[in-house]
């Protein structure tokens, strides 16, 4: 049985990656889990320089979900390359860097550093973090800016370039196409949904930043829908992200058209969740007489004609 997939030049032994922001830099899990069981690890978002991140409190639990505003606290790309990459090279898993920037130039510069660093397998371009005042969503909320960032990164690297799209837009397909036109090798869909939790006693937001990004099983149907829309809009492969906590969740994304998936919030709940998801995918393939996980991708039998309305609509 083959679980290997190829995502725009990024070869993965299986279709499971750990999502950015939910797995640190990977090395935090050394000794606790077998990192080589993961197809890949996407790093916490990295700028050129270290960042403090958002004020506390930074996380709040919500029904089947987690609202966070970490604000991209990080060590910066240079410390990552010096301290983390050599350690992660010891593990047989693809290391993908989540690239951040306050400007188009900064994204490109981080990408340039990564390109010159053996041991980095791909770049996920973070144009969708809702928890920073500038950058992030400023680039992911305007298709021209999305195009500009992706094109700038594309110009400086041969590594697979994988923009991570925001769900906080009216029509994700516009952004998917803009990214593809700019030279993206694949797309990650989706980042968190902007939410607000209120402490009714203090009448203040529960998070220090104010609003936050919602993740976890609560967002899964939205994520599957948006990943499915993006996958139908472009030729490049899509990596599905959003609330995956078990094999069936991952299978939903694969059937909807994603060639790989990322597990995010569920890593906090159980750092070995990928073992269960992997085993469950294997069982499913065997039960359905499939020998290759790729045979499953995009096999959704949608009733009638799929709606063109971006949000799916309701009536």
């Amino acid at each position, binding site marked *: 049985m083959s679980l290997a997939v190829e995502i725009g030049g990024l070869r993965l032994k299986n279709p499971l990656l750990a999502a950015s922001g939910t797995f640190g830099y990977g090395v935090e899990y050394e000794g606790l889990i077998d990192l080589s069981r993961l197809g890949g690890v996407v790093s916490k978002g990295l700028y050129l320089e270290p960042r*403090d991140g958002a004020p506390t409190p930074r996380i709040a639990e919500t029904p089947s979900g987690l609202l966070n505003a970490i604000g991209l606290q990080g060590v910066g790309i240079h410390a990552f390359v010096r301290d983390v990459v050599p350690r992660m090279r010891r593990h047989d898993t693809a290391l993908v860097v989540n690239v951040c920037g306050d400007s188009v130039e900064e994204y490109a510069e981080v990408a340039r550093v990564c390109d010159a660093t053996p041991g980095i397998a791909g770049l996920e371009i973070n144009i969708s973090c809702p928890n920073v005042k500038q950058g992030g969503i400023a680039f992911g909320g305007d298709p021209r800016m999305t195009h500009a960032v992706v094109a700038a990164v594309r110009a400086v690297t041969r590594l697979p370039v994988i923009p991570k799209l925001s769900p906080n837009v009216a029509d994700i397909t516009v952004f998917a196409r803009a990214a593809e036109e700019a030279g993206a090798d694949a797309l990650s869909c989706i980042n968190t949904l902007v939410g607000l939790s209120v402490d009714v006693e203090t009448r203040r937001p529960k998070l220090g930043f104010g609003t936050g990004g919602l993740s976890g*099983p609560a967002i899964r149907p939205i994520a599957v829908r948006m990943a499915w829309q993006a996958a139908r809009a472009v030729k490049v492969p899509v990596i599905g992200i959003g609330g995956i*906590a078990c094999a069936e969740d991952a299978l939903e994304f694969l059937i909807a058209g994603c060639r790989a998936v990322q597990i995010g919030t569920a890593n906090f*709940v159980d750092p070995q969740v990928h073992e269960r998801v992997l085993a469950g995918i294997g069982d499913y393939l065997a039960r359905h007489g499939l020998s290759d996980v790729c045979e499953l991708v995009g096999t959704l039998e949608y009733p009638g004609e799929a709606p063109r309305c971006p949000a799916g609509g309701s009536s």
Partner: protein
Amino acid sequence: MPANRTASLVAREGLGGAYFLLTFLHPEAAREAQAGQFVMIKAGVSAEPPLRRPFSILEASPERETFTLFVKAIGQGSRALAALPLGGVAQCLGPLGRPFAAPADGEEALMVGGGYGVAPLGFLGGELRRRGEPARLFYGGRTSADLPLLKRLKQQGLEVVPATEDGTTGVAGRVTVALEAHLEATTGARRLYACGPEAMMHAVARIAAARGLAAQVSLDPWMGCGVGTCLGCVVRIQRAEDARWKYRCACTEGPVFEAAHVVWPGEAESHARQARAAAGEARA
């Protein structure tokens, strides 16, 4: 090295009200736990609540391969844990975090615990008592019902000074009143340890700073992962030599910190930094 495994509940003791002692089978945590360390734990595999919860370890028994938590079942996660049937299974990662530093030879350990924050101090007190080292626990709550571990800790031979704000048990007033009275009445080398509500730990930190005593606190912010990846539990930490504070993960760089390194709410700098600035002015 912490271990991520299922842990079955082998004993549950109700202590009145919402308080429980819950004992779980977890060989690694039982063997390796040190005072001040914690586990991330969640009852069963249900979707709700989504996250595991951090609990400081009260006791560990390497022989029985168990550890015991002191739980106040007030939230979704703690209630589900307390409602587990015997033999019921929790998902548990641990032991985690930086433990308390032992007192130096001849130092008296003065521990200040408030509410369910007494748990890691119960562990520390037990260790010190077994080693025959001087230790005293100031155990505070609003009323006597908030001191459910009082009897047990005393029975174990720990020197406990209870304090209640309504005066129903022990010293009347805040637990720091009892601490200050002891500090006034005695002499010799002392080291402070505190765990409980933030305002209580802040008060202990101020007392330590004013008297030039070393003090460690076990902080309790919301935690997502317990292993330093979610960055949800960061606290502001500033050593004397740091020009400005940095966010540090309470799960991996704490939960135990030097009280003087914490930038407490309402203060711009840590006590260590403030002391350094004061010393500089005194020289100038």
